[in-house]
């Protein structure tokens, strides 16, 4: 079946190692998102699965078959590129039918499969058009159509929505997800946009500098990031980080910052005196008595919520609240932190405690 196994995969460019032994297990029918900042190796990993990039070490298998030395066309995969990679001189129907034509399928079968894919993607009206006569979203759908006519074991998407405007991106995100729920084909999807990753994936693989930082379900990554990098990368707006030392105050453990501000802890077992990074997501902060004093500089009202930018002892801290706040910037506000939602990381290693 369409499972993908990546075992200890490495990649060297010249003498430089850019991929340091990546292990990922992708089960049949899963929607896996590879996410990370640019240069983290996520696209390289996808291209290695596709066979467009050779691997320097390790093993990749698709559907139980080791594909290290198998050329792309025999891997039974379909790929959608960021640029869509449509053939400019072919019509929509010819573009979508191309893989079948190459597989020497009978004309009637090609026409039937192309028509069915066009129906699924709402492209029937455009079958005779050329790519240059289509909008960005339509081109995107043609690229997906070309992938689904083949009925491959695995779909590979390389940042497919990056060239679309914000509104269309949301629509296409939903369409791709619906398509996956309908076809249940194993999908590997690369993006640098953590919102896309969170909303689409069954499983997220967070990568940095050619290494896997964490693999898990979207909400697990959000709730229990294993290190500072994942904590800062997943979630928008991103997590606040404050440096301090663990101490006991009034019988309760807190993290004490240099400025003597006590940040509440709950349910974390750490010895007193340890230098830690305290993390709290902006959405886990409320405004009210008993909070820490923050000098507020900017309010960003979006209607549904308000994003407040502030500083505590010179360190930036943001809060995302549901209320509408009509205050002058420059005031001091009290940010109340929910201690059960706080994350504590070792200052030296960045690992979760």
């Amino acid at each position, binding site marked *: 079946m369409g499972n993908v196994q990546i075992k200890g995969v490495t990649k060297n460019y010249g003498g430089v190692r850019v991929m340091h032994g990546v292990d990922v297990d992708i089960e049949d029918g899963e929607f896996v998102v590879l996410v990370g900042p640019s240069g983290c190796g996520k696209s390289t990993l996808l291209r290695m699965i596709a066979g467009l990039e050779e691997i320097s070490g390790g093993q990749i298998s698709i559907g139980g078959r080791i594909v290290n030395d198998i050329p792309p066309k025999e891997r039974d995969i379909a790929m959608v*590129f960021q640029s869509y990679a449509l053939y*400019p001189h072919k019509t929509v129907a010819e573009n979508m039918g*191309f893989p079948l034509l190459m597989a020497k399928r009978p004309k009637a079968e090609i026409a039937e499969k192309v028509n069915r894919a066009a129906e699924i993607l709402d492209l029937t009206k455009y079958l005779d058009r050329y790519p240059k006569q289509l909008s960005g979203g339509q081109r995107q759908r043609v690229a997906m159509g070309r992938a689904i006519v083949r009925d491959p074991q695995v779909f590979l998407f390389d940042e497919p929505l990056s060239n679309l405007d914000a509104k269309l991106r949301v629509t296409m995100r939903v369409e791709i997800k619906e398509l996956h729920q309908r076809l249940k084909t194993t999908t590997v999807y690369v993006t640098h946009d953590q919102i896309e990753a969170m909303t689409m994936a069954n499983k997220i693989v967070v990568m940095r500098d050619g290494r896997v930082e964490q693999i898990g379900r979207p909400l697990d990554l959000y709730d229990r990031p294993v290190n500072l990098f994942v904590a800062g990368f997943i979630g928008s707006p991103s997590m606040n980080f404050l440096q301090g030392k663990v101490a006991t105050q009034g019988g309760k453990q807190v993290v004490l910052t240099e400025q003597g501000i006590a940040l509440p802890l709950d349910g974390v077992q750490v010895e007193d005196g340890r230098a830690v990074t305290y993390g709290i997501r902006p959405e886990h902060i409320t405004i009210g008595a008993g909070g820490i004093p923050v000098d507020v500089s900017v309010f960003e009202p979006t209607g549904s919520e308000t994003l407040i930018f502030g500083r505590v002892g010179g360190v930036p801290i943001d809060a995302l609240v549901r209320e509408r706040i009509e205050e002058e910037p420059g005031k001091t506000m009290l940010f109340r932190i929910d201690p059960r939602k706080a994350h504590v990381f070792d200052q030296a290693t960045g690992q979760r405690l």
Partner: protein
Amino acid sequence: MQSKKLGWLLLSPTLFILGLFGIFPFIYVVWVSFHEWNPFAANPEKLFNWAENYRKVVFDAQFLASLGVTLAFVFFAVVSEVVIGYLLAQAFMKNFPGKSFFRTIHTLPLIMAPIIVGSIWKLMTTPSIGIIPNLLDTWFGIDLNIGQSALAAFSITVIMDIWHWTPLVTLSLIAALVSLPSDPFEQAQIDGANKRQVFWHITLPMIRPALIATVFIRLMDAMRTVDEVLMLTGGGPGSATRYVGVHIYKEVFPRTNYGYGSAISVIVLYLSIVICWLLYVSLIAPRNKKG
């Protein structure tokens, strides 16, 4: 108003030069072609004789033979140049040691004047002293004599043209290949196309505009080849390599048949336009209608 005047002012040097060296000579040739004019004949005056020159051209066996060998020459030369040029362009797309050196060397023929190319090839092919007949004789026992064998002379003119002009094709196809996006090619690999299919389905259609432009340029140039061939074979042996350019030259200069020569020039120009138009109609127009 002011900007319009300024526009014409800025255009005027170009228009002047174009008019003086392009439009005026063309109109003059057309005008002369309707005259009987041989300044060294008993009557050196231009005598208007309607379309008599054109009537003569159409029934001139020597001209028709010349046109036939020209078309054969153009066909073999241009087809070979495009095929070899494409293969070289593909080779130069890959990395190999000494690539830029070879690329430079291979474009050198382009900067040589045709008259020089003709002289060099004459030196290389002259029986008994030229290197080519010499080697052919030593290695294969072939006796190459372009002064006697019509086929040999014809072949050598074709090879000379290929040697001289393939780099032009290579350069323009390199430019076309370099500018192609890489994604469709990777996509084609995933879509299951092999090398041959990638060439016919992806590469060729995508470089088509550059390819057609190059073919047009080479076609028109080859149609009016004169100096190289004149230098190499002088149109012989017999009239084996008397291409239309050479034919016109011989009519106009040694025989000073200005009126008749002009009429042939106009006919050849017309034929070039017709051939290009046919190519355009068969290769470009159908795509434009669709695209």
